[in-house]
Each structure stands twice: as structure tokens, then as C-alpha cells.
């Protein structure tokens, strides 16, 4: 009898303690959610106030764009994509598709938009390459377990942080004045940013390697380069590649945006087409861009799965 009461007393105490604990936690959760809601409402109001057109004024007109976006003849989308002359052409730029053809050999041409898309993708690839080439050595210098000098590490880390945080658009604008407006300025800007972004990810991988191969090499008298080459690199290369592929996905997107502000490529054309209300051209460009980004993403995801498997895949999201 007594033992049963004792037992139930203990249970009750335990239950009370649990309730107290959860009530405190619930209070903080509610407080956090409440603060978040207040911040959300305030920022919504602020964004609405600062905008040229207000949300509820514009809401009834939100589908207005369909009136210019939906072409009278759906075939015009294909014609715009492949630069084929359209019967709708009345002398304006809106339907003059063959205008931008890039002739390669005689009558053989590359459709304008494919050429622009290629520029954008090339900008992304070259800048990712620049990022990779510089980020790898930087990451070895910045890793705590590989480089003993704290000053060297600090300098390289801060430098990469600066490159990462520096707005790409300013670098692009600066180099536009030096190497002329166009894809090269975009490459420099995105490349510099990629050095910082990849460098940070890379050195974090470096700091998490298994140090035993390194110690083994040190024991047989290998110097720094040999240790990095034969102990560190084989461990980290798959992850490096995986992050680089991820970077390619991001850089394709950034180089599209860079194009819209003067970096050459498809972004510029898209901005023009939308601002002028050229429905068929806009749809063709959106379609091309969508398919390209989708393919790049899928290809990179497939390759990353092959390289590092499923688990590191989640981390990178």
C-alpha cells in the first residue's frame, strides 16, 4: 500500500517536472513564433509602402501580363527560339526573329538565343573554374590541421570572407569600366566571388579529414606539399568536386542575372523582351532558360550522387 503511494507520488512529481519544463519551452516557442509574426507583418507593410505599386491596388491586375505574354500564334514561340521567319512579322522587332541569327558557315546559323544561352553557361563554367583553381590552394592554407601558422590562416580566411561578401555587382561594374561591359567583366566578378564561396566550403572539408594518413606521411619525412597531395587531396577531392558542381548550378543563375545588368548573355535579352512586352520572345527565352537550368541541375545532382553518395548530398542544400 505505502509503496504504491510512494510510487505514484514519484510519478506525479516526474509528471509535474515534465509539465513545468514543457510549459517553459512552449512559452518560448510561442514567444518566438509571435515575434516572427510581428516581424513578418511589419516587413510586409514596409515592403508594400516602399513599392512603386501597392499590393492590393495591383492584385486585380496581376494577371494582366497574360494579355501580352500569350501569343496569338503559339508557333511563334518555336519560331522565336529557332530564328525562323514568322508570318506575324510586320517590320517591328517583336516578330523579326531571323534578325539575330549568328551565321557560322554560309547559310548555317546558330539561333540567337542559343548563342546567348551558351554565353551565359560559359560565363558560369569559366568563373567556376577560376573559383576552383584558386580556392583549392587557399583552402589548404586556411585549414587549421594543415597549416600551423595562425597569421597566414587568418589572412587567407579574411581575404576569402571579403571576396564572398563583396557584392558581385560592384566588381562587375568596376571591371566593366576596365575591360569593357560584357561577359568578361561578369566572369571576373563571379569568379572572384566563387573563390571566396568555394574556399570556405573547401577548408571546412579539409578540417574534418582523417589525419592518420597525414601522420603516416609525416613519419616517413614527407614535406608539406607531399602531405597535402597524398594524404589530404584523395580524401577531399570527391567532396570538392561535389561542391564545385553545386557552384556551377548557382553560377548559371548568377550569370543570368549579371546578364540583365550588362554582363552579356541571355539575361539582357530577357529583360528587354519582358520590359517591351514581346510575348513570343519572352516565352521562348523563359523556356530555354528553364530547360537549361533544369538540365544543369539534374546533371549536377546525378554526378554528385555518383561522387559522394546520398548523405553529403543533403548537407549541401
Amino acid at each position: 500500500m505505502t509503496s504504491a503511494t510512494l510510487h505514484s507520488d514519484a510519478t506525479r512529481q516526474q509528471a509535474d517536472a515534465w509539465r513545468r519544463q514543457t510549459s517553459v519551452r512552449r512559452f518560448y516557442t510561442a514567444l518566438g513564433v509571435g515575434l516572427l509574426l510581428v516581424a513578418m507583418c511589419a516587413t510586409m507593410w514596409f515592403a508594400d509602402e516602399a513599392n512603386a505599386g501597392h499590393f492590393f491596388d495591383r492584385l486585380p491586375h496581376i494577371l494582366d501580363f497574360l494579355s501580352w505574354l500569350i501569343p496569338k500564334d503559339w508557333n511563334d514561340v518555336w519560331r522565336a527560339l529557332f530564328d525562323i521567319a514568322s508570318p506575324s512579322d510586320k517590320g517591328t522587332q517583336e516578330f523579326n526573329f531571323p534578325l539575330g541569327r549568328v551565321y557560322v558557315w554560309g547559310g548555317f546559323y546558330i539561333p540567337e538565343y542559343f548563342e546567348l544561352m551558351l554565353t551565359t553557361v560559359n560565363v558560369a563554367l569559366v568563373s567556376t573554374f577560376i573559383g576552383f583553381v584558386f580556392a583549392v590552394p587557399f583552402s589548404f592554407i586556411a585549414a587549421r590541421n594543415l597549416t600551423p601558422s595562425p597569421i597566414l590562416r587568418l589572412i587567407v580566411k579574411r581575404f576569402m570572407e571579403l571576396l564572398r561578401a563583396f557584392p558581385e555587382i560592384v566588381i562587375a561594374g568596376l571591371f566593366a569600366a576596365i575591360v569593357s561591359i560584357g561577359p568578361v567583366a561578369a566572369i571576373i566578378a563571379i569568379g572572384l566571388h566563387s573563390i571566396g564561396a568555394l574556399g570556405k566550403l573547401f577548408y571546412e572539408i579539409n578540417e574534418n579529414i582523417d589525419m592518420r594518413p597525414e601522420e603516416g606521411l609525416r613519419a616517413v619525412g614527407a614535406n608539406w606539399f607531399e602531405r597535402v597531395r597524398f594524404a589530404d587531396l584523395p580524401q577531399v577531392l570527391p567532396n570538392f568536386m561535389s561542391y564545385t558542381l553545386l557552384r556551377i548550378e548557382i553560377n548559371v543563375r548568377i550569370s543570368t542575372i549579371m546578364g540583365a545588368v550588362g554582363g552579356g548573355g541571355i539575361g539582357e535579352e530577357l529583360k528587354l523582351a519582358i520590359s517591351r512586352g514581346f510575348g513570343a520572345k519572352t516565352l521562348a527565352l523563359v523556356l530555354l532558360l528553364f530547360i537549361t537550368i533544369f538540365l544543369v541541375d539534374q546533371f549536377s545532382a546525378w554526378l554528385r550522387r555518383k561522387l559522394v553518395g546520398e548523405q553529403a548530398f543533403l548537407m549541401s542544400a
Partner: protein
Amino acid sequence: MSTITADEISAIEKRHPHIFQRPAYKRFWPLLLVAGTVLYLGYALWFFSLPQVLRESHWERLPLFLSQWISYDLQPEFRLDQPEITPKYPRFSALGENPNPDWVIKNPDGTYTVQIDGDAKFVTFDKTKATLTANGVTVPIRLTGGKPVVTGPAPDWVTVHDDEIVAKMGFAGEVRVTVDRVKVRKRFLGWANFVFDTRSPFFGKPAGEVMSLIVSGPELQPGTSNLALAADNIWNNAQWQHGDVWTKLLQTIVMAFLGTLLGGIVAFPLAFFAARNITPSGLLSQVLKRFFDFMRSVDMLIWALFFTRAFGPGPLAGSAAIFFTEIGTLGKTYSEALENIDDKAREGVLSTGANGILVQRYGVLPEVVPIFISQTLYQWESNTRGATIIGAVGAGGIGLKLWEAMRTNSNWANVFYMVLLTLLVVFVFDNISNFLRRRLSRTLHDYNRLQAERG
């Protein structure tokens, strides 16, 4: 020291065929990769016509632009064909309405001396002759006879054109001499009029005086306190536009915050229906996953351009663009996190007879919420950076202002000011997000350890 015999070598080779006799494609793929990269780089060199671009680039502008980030110049001009020589300053000169700098000296004999760099670099002139002094060399110039002529040898910092002589004096500035005018560009380190612009009554006063005016001075503008006046003058500084810059910066922050938060709110329920292990319908899961891919693949740029057309330029368009992209990104990452949970907790809750929502609440949520929050914070961080670029296409925020300031190539100090503010914001938000994520991962870590200890 023992040596390996040939027999032992072949024995080792036989024992480990997967190392010593790898198929050709496995042995050569790194080489192929390198060769492919080199080929591609050659192609890219040709595609972007890089040699030509580099040949035609103006690298000499780089130090000039960079020095403009942290300096400003004053450009007095002296007309020599007027009855009396007087300095003229361009409108909106950093010196204000009544300039009388002490480095422009009217000598007793009627000549003018302009000190570019103290007593080391200066120019002295009247209507008939000018004398340039720099680097310990004095260069006399004769201005009579229709064109300026250097009498004597010209050092390499002096360039003689047909009707103009240009003397470059390094960072300090330059002097241009023609027959009828002398133009001086004198460069100062720092940012001119950063606090008060030239129209402000506080302009040109030392900090102590401004302070005492604010605390106890007579009202400079009747009806407003000096403090309010000073604040208003700073906020509306015409040259630096502090008010506008800070508002635009806040817009950028708001865009990233609002877009990511709304994206998370919408993606949260959708992710449960997209996760293959939670939703019973394979079709629904596939449809939602393709929807996420669609939202991600229609680039943030496209969304930004569309919403700028729909809502007009401003942070609303930017927030909406980030919101739509983020539905895709967060939806994808959330559903992947859900698909990787440990199913035992869910089964446990299910076995007590709980209904569908309760199973999610008590069997799934405790496991994934820290991951969700961590991923959302990460996206928030990267969107704060991305919102700067998106702004440049008209979607609001500091991006457009940066782009406009850069387009004229003359306002690099303002650009640098905005860059510094952006860097500060990115730095602060990175640290907040990192701090929160570290806290979260510690909670997760503690939780896992406790679980492990309990067995």
C-alpha cells in the same frame, strides 16, 4: 633493409587486382578530365576573344578608380583671358558657396600659386608664364605666342600636347595649362562632407562647435530645434543621401527576410505531401517535387522581372521573387530532410492509435524542425547577399542604387560607402545565422547524446 623479390611483387599484384589491374577508363579518367578542361579553356579563350579584350582593356583606370573610393578632388579653374585672374570652382564643389582654400595663394606680385602637395608640388602662374614644380624639378612654361611652350627640357611627368600641357603629380593631382586657362585637380584623402553637405548651416564647422550649437546654441532655423535640424541635414545630405541609402539597405534586408520566411511557411506543409515516406500517394509526391523543381528552375531573375512588371519596381517585387524561388528550394530541401528521418518514432506514435496529424506532430516534427530551421537560416543568409543583385534589375533595395552610382563612373566614393554598408549587413546577418545554427546543432547534439546514454 629487406628487398622485395620479383615473385613477391607478382604475388602482391595477384592478391590486389583491383589496385594493380584497373580497367583503362578508371586509370585514365583523371587525365581525360584534365585534357578536357584544357581543351574547354582554349575554346573559352576563343569564345570570349579574351586576348583581344585584355589588349583593349584599360588597366591604368583601376588604381584611379580605387583611389576615388577613398578620396575626393577639388577642381579650381583660372581664366587667364579675363581682366583679372580669379579661381572658379565647378557647381556643387565640395567646398561650398564661398570657397577660399589656403592652398590657393595670391602673391603680392599679382601671380597665383596653387599648392598641389604643400611646398613640394605646386604651380605658379600669371597671364604670360607658368612654372610647374614637382619632384625637385622646375618646369617653366611660356604662354605667349598662341600655344603653351615648355622652355627647356620636359621631364616625363609633363606631357606636351598641341595646345595643352598636362602635368601629372601622382595621387596629389594634376595641372593642365593652356594659353587662356589653368585647370588644377587637387586630390584629398577621405570623404568630403560626409556628415553635413554644403547647404547645411552646420557646414564647415568643427565638431566641437556643432556639438555646442546642438546642445545650447540659438535656433539656426526658427521653429526647429538644432538637434532636429542637424538630424534632418544629415539624413537629407544631398551628396551622400544617407536617408535614401539606409532606406534602400533596409529594403534589401526586408526582401531577403520576407521572401525566405514566406517561402518557408508555404514550403512547410507542401514538403509533407512531397516526402515519399509520409504521403501515401506517389502521384502527389511526384507532382509536388516537379513543382518545386519548376519554381527553382524558373530563375529568380525571371520572377523578379515579372513581379517588377506586375507590382512596379520596389521591395515588394523583390520579396515576391525570392518568395517564389524559395518555395522551390526550401520545398526540395525540406522534403529531402523528411525522407531521411528515422521511421521508428513515427511508428511508435502510430501504434498508440494517434491520427495522421498527431503522428506528424509528435513522431516527425521533433526530428526535422531543427534541420528545417537550420536550412531556412542558411537560405536567409544567402538571400541577403542575393537580394543585392536582384535589386539591380529593378526589384528594389540597394542594388539599383549601387548600379546607378556606378554607371556614371564618377561616384566611386558613394559606391564604396554603400559597399561598406552591404558588407556590414552581410557580416552581421552571417554571424546571427551562424550563431543560431550553432545553438541549434548543439541542441541536436545534446539530444542525440542523451538518447544514446539512455540506450
